[in-house]
């Protein structure tokens, strides 16, 4: 009896998590010109409108460029730091780990204010650069946590074996280390991109006037009323943010199978 109760309860929790999201997707196909019930017909009209909306397209471009650059920098810094933590005995490792994940422990609003005010003092105004710095600093801990977990699986002896069999450091890196590390690097990059793409809390502090990312654009549109366009945009975002990590996970699985770990 008890187990059935728990199962029913868990099912309700799943419904709670998914229902609002499902309604967004459902309403985005609604033909009605209000972004709400009743549903008057099925239509792709709002997706079409979306593709015509200059502001939204611009926001998408900004978000994607920002996400890619964030992923690039954050993954590079994160992979290097993770390598150090996983492969070497570093004195004071616990302190360093805590320092590296400090950006998660500080509330994002506070991090946003501190960075904005400090860089402004140094003469960096609200700009794309500030936005990029901000996104790098708060995605970095997540990258480190994800990459570190994956790197644990790679054993150093494999590299040493390659070298002792006559491979040069370059050969070893490309033929042994890189293929083994690739899933970790990709997972980290994907994580950084998704977090950056989704961020609004810090972004609202750092973005210059007139520049919008997708989340801040949605936020600005919400001030009027919920339009069917927002639901359509939401559906696109859902497909992107859910689809990408799933694809990434699948890719990582295939890659790690190939390399035999």
């Amino acid at each position, binding site marked *: 009896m008890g187990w059935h109760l728990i199962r029913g309860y868990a099912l309700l929790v799943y419904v709670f998590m998914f229902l609002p999201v499902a309604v967004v997707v459902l309403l985005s196909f609604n033909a009605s010109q209000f972004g709400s019930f009743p549903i008057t017909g099925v239509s792709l009209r709002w997706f079409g409108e979306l593709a015509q909306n200059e502001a939204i397209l611009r926001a998408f471009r900004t978000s994607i460029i920002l996400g890619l650059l964030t992923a690039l920098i954050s993954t590079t810094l994160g992979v290097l730091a993770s390598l150090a933590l996983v492969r070497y005995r570093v004195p004071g490792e616990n302190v360093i780990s805590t320092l590296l994940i*400090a950006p998660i422990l500080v*509330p994002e*609003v506070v991090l946003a204010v501190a960075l904005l*005010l400090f860089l402004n003092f140094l003469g960096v105004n609200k700009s794309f650069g500030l936005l990029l710095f901000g996104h790098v600093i708060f995605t970095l801990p997540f990258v480190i*946590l994800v990459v570190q977990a994956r790197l644990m699986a790679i054993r150093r002896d494999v590299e040493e074996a390659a070298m002792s069999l006559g491979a040069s450091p370059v050969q070893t890196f490309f033929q042994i280390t890189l293929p083994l590390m690739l899933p970790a690097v990709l997972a980290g990059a994907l994580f950084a991109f998704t977090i950056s793409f989704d961020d609004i809390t810090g972004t609202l*502090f750092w973005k210059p006037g007139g520049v919008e990312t997708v*989340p801040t654009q949605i936020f600005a549109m919400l001030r009027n009323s919920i339009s069917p366009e927002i639901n359509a945009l939401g559906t696109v975002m859902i497909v992107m943010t859910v689809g990408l990590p799933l694809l990434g996970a699948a890719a990582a699985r295939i890659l790690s199978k190939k390399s035999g770990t």
Partner: protein
Amino acid sequence: MVPIFTILIIYLLNENHLPKVPSNPNCLTATLRDILMSIEARERRQPWILLSPALTAITLLLFVPLLFIVVYSFWLRTATGADQSGFFLDNWREALSDPFYRDILLFTLKIAAITTLVCAVMGYPAAYFIARSRGNKAVLLLLLMLPFWISYIIRTMSWINILGVSGALNTFLIWTGVISEPIQMLYNQTTVILGLVHFLLPFMILNVFVSLDGIDVTLEDAATSLGATRWEAFVQVTLPLSLPGLAAGGLLCFVLAAGTYITPLVLGGPTDAMFANLVYEAIITQLNWPLGSALSLMLLAVLGLLVMIYNRYLGMAQLMKGLG
């Protein structure tokens, strides 16, 4: 591609080229000692080279800015709009003594506490279900993590579709004849909490799951075979063992809830401003940066104290398990 090349370059720069082994056997021991020493030196130096970019970034973009706003909070915003540097206690006096700020701080802590409690009550059984399910745990967990990947702003605004005047619930209630006019269910304290729970529940479930999954199932069986009922076995064995996960999830929920300003802006009414909204107002709307610094530091102090208490008793390791 670029990160890979950067990593390669740093990796190679780091690769110490070992001394060539000479053909003369007499100096072989000396060379061997050289090789060992150079490997040792490399082992000591290399991690710092690998760590330095990340540590530099975090120092320059987090720690130094935090110290900077401590200084900034003692500056003064003058009537002309310029900030006067110096040592003024005005901002702190205002932030600490004005009952307006105190009330909103208490309100924020209350909302965060209720959110955490609701997350625990909703999340624990769900995590228990996933951990003890005979089905595919990975799929169940992935399903739960999906909303986690879905944009925060979309998930927050999605409640307007459910609870709004022409939302799903009102439409349904009118259709069934329970009510004849739509009622406004949005823009109050309850919807703020609802939005926060929806946002934070995956954090709670993941943390509880990680700690439940690490508990040996046979422990409960052992307890029941010794005469405990299923319920007693759970309360006396499983629950205490899973408390670290519950605490880690609780801390994350509380800190993230107390630091939000978007949810109250989207789902709250005019009187539901939380402390982070005050920070946003001071920095972005009023452009009173010294006061904004003081308010940010107040929030950091309150939440930092919680993190420190947590770290003192449970340590950061549990938190990282749930995050990674």
